[in-house]
């Protein structure tokens, strides 16, 4: 694995994470606030970055940690500024990059290796299932680190699962459109 390849992975994964973050917070959150004005939580109910975390973990395995770290750090710094260096937020960053590859690794050791590898057909329900498990674990750990109210635990879970599903759907439709354009 060359340095160039690692750099390419980092640029793609972190850019995808930051893009998903801005689509979520600049595009989807205002819509969420419009439809659910009584929902008093800062959590997004359609958190696309979780999809980027899961797909990166599926595709890159442990290498998704350094690949996503700059993107995750940037989003925390964008929201919290200097407070990013508080222990709770540093824990949040660590949880964000560690949980998904850890879930894929443990699943591979215990029952099924769903990670992307040559000569193995990808299993999308497995990726989705492990993404849901990562959402549960990541949500619990992040909210424990932040000392959030119980509502946030549910909001994080719903947001992560919906974000993963919608990101996969959006990518599926994008690839489909691309195929349509190129086969004409």
């Amino acid at each position, binding site marked *: 694995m060359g340095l160039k*390849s690692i750099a390419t992975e980092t640029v793609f994964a972190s850019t995808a994470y930051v893009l998903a973050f801005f689509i979520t917070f600049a595009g989807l959150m205002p819509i969420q606030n419009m439809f659910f004005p009584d929902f008093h939580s800062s959590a997004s109910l359609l958190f696309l970055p979780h999809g980027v975390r899961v797909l990166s973990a599926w595709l890159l395995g442990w290498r998704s940690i350094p690949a996503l770290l700059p993107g995750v750090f940037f989003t925390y710094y964008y929201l919290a500024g200097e407070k990013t260096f508080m222990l709770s937020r540093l824990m949040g960053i660590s949880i964000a990059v560690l949980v998904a590859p850890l879930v894929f690794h443990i699943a591979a050791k215990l029952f099924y290796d769903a990670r992307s590898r040559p000569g193995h057909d990808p299993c999308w329900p497995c990726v989705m299932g492990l993404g849901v498990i990562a959402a549960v674990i990541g949500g619990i750990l992040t909210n424990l680190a932040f000392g959030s109210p119980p509502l946030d635990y549910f909001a994080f879970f719903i947001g992560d699962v919906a974000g993963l599903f919608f990101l996969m759907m959006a990518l599926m439709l994008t690839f*489909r459109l691309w195929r349509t354009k190129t086969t004409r």
Partner: protein
Amino acid sequence: MNDISKLAELRKLLLGMERALGLEDLSAVERDIYYAASDLSKQAQGVRTTGLLTHALIQDVSRPTFFRALKSLVNKGYLSQSAPSRRGVYVVNSPNS
């Protein structure tokens, strides 16, 4: 895995999802031809190849692609040849029939 094969893996994963959701049955060109044939069959019994070729949905499709997709639609049962005496005329079948 190099960067291209990672992209290919991602496409394979999402193609599996597309198949499971039942969206991959017809290609985009096949679907356009089927829509055009359904549209034309409202006006007359049997759809002519010449009519299909001039339909708005088919205008960007090259002739070889069109004929390949038409043959595929016949093979999949979405269209069937009209009476042998009426070459180039097709009958639209329901996808579930």
